[in-house]
């Protein structure tokens, strides 16, 4: 209800003041572009998903099935993504890496978003000393490059899916905390928050019932971006051969294996990378669309 009245006033302002007319025009174009970007993003994210669903039904080769006669094949009807240096089918291998990639990325973002939101909300809402302590902590975490933290974790606790998720999840906390904190700082001095405080609402109620819904689309945008960053970080770790265990196929590891034969077997070195790029770009577009929507719905 509050949102709509705010909007109406805004429009009245625009009609009264001819200088603001341009904004009236851009508003709808912003929404259109947000819709368009969301659409593009969903299509890009849908491509790997559809390929994965196809690979569940259509499985012409085994994951580790070698075929020495068909080494370094280009893409064809027989081998959709070509073959690698052992003659293994790249399509089947790449698709078998799809679920683990998505699982790791979601896990990382769950940890990052959960703890990041709590830290960001507390430091943004209460500000002051708590904010100082948390901002030193986030600054410290941000100064350690993500890959380094992953490597440090792996060196201490060994290879493993859980290790990667926890290590990178910790590194994702500061970015979420920053976003939530800036949102809370923006709204904490507003009149509606003061009124709620005077009415006797508890801090928890204000934070969860009133402030979190306001930064929902901002958080969604951050989640989409975090999803792509997690995929990039995870593939970098597996490219170094130190992420998830060696028996698990991932796109980073496929690229590492294909790296030595770039000029003989182009397709083995290209397709896993393209899959990463398509998913990451798709989430970029989705993230942008949420960002635009957030700017549009600003209170």
């Amino acid at each position: 209800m509050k949102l709509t009245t705010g909007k109406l006033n805004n429009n009245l302002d625009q009609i009264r003041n001819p200088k603001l007319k341009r904004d009236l025009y851009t508003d709808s174009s912003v929404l259109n572009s947000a819709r368009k970007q969301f659409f593009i993003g969903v299509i890009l994210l849908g491509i790997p998903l559809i390929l994965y669903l196809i690979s569940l039904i259509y499985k012409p080769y085994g994951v580790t099935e070698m075929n020495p006669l068909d080494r370094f094949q280009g893409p064809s009807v027989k081998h959709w993504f070509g073959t690698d240096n052992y003659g293994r089918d790249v399509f089947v291998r790449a698709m078998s890496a799809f679920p683990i990639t998505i699982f790791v990325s979601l896990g990382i973002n769950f940890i990052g978003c959960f703890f990041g939101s709590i830290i960001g909300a507390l430091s943004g809402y209460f500000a002051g000393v708590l904010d100082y302590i948390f901002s030193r902590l986030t600054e410290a975490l941000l100064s350690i490059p993500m890959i380094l933290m992953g490597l440090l974790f792996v060196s201490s606790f060994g290879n493993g899916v859980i290790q990667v998720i926890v290590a990178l999840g910790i590194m994702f906390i500061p970015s979420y905390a920053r976003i939530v904190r800036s949102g809370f700082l923006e709204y904490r001095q507003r009149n509606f928050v003061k009124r709620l405080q005077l009415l006797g609402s508890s801090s928890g109620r204000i934070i969860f019932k009133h402030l979190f819904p306001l930064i929902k689309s901002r958080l969604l945008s951050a989640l989409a971006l975090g999803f792509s960053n997690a995929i990039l970080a995870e593939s970098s770790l597996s490219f170094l051969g130190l992420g998830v265990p060696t028996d698990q196929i991932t796109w980073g590891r496929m690229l590492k294996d294909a790296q030595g034969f770039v000029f003989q077997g182009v397709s083995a070195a290209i397709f896993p990378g393209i899959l990463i790029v398509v998913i990451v770009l798709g989430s970029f577009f989705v993230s942008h669309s949420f960002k635009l929507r957030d700017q549009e719905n600003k209170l």
Partner: protein
Amino acid sequence: MTRYIVKKIIDMIITIFIIVLIVFAMFELIPGNPARIMLGMNASNAQVAALEAELGLDKSIFVKIYTYFSDLFNGDLGFSFRFQRPVIELITEALPYTLFLALYAFFFIIILAIPLAILAARKPNSKLDNFIRISSETCLAIPPFFMAIILMLIFRTSQLALQGGSVDFDLNNAFQSYWMPALAIALSRLAMAMEFLRDSIIEQRESDYVKTAIGKGASRSRVMFFHIFRNSLVPFITALGLILAEVFSGSIIIEQVFLIPGLGRSLVTAVEARDFQLTQGIVLLIAFIVVFVNFCVDLINQFIDPRIREQNKKLYKSRNTFFLRMKNQANLDSQKKR
């Protein structure tokens, strides 16, 4: 001004302290006996006990933290078991390669980002702007190692580098041999710096002083470079400071692709061999560099933009207590545009 610098230095020290604690905690939390893991399964119990005594594993946690910090303060990062040499020696050997690679990547980022951002900001949301932004976003979506593979395929030159380091990554003719790894890092991180600069140029162009300058008859290029660009530098330099950690991440991976004997390769070797002290040393060093550079970025911004200087002067007035400063800082942050 001195107050501000002193307080920033205190902040920096606290941050470094937290980083060291995190790294220390990693070593403390290792499941099992670190000495046993380092020496391998074949070591005798006496050897393990000797190493434990040497590492001080049998002491209490406070003693351990104290010795860790005092060793760090004396520049002693420990002893590498994989290479059987002090960590500090190994790091000083490998650091120049990584540092050069990172700086070279920064050089590419700066010379590519500035013209692209100015071109893109000329007409926001035009075809050219959209093209530049979408292509730089696409580059951002490409992980550095895949970018390296793409560059190899495009230029077809570093076939030798792939087959066992036949291309010489000596620092003598570094500018020729390092261009491809540096470009791979730069391209995959270019978009961040460019977007920051583009947005701030667009924002600055709407401001009053630019209109005044145009009204006074200043030429377009003069307004662009002496008024808009100078004021857009602050967010750009801040963005460069933020990218630094990413560039180091990138160079660690790229070193693995091109077999450059830098910190990244020692780090990966150390992690594979579970050489904890070398791993910690490299992580701490890179984190220190990042913290220090970001501190310098804050100072540089002060000198470029008098408005920031004034704001900080007000914020760090001698009468302001710590609590008041935090409150004012929060208020300032809340007024800031996202």
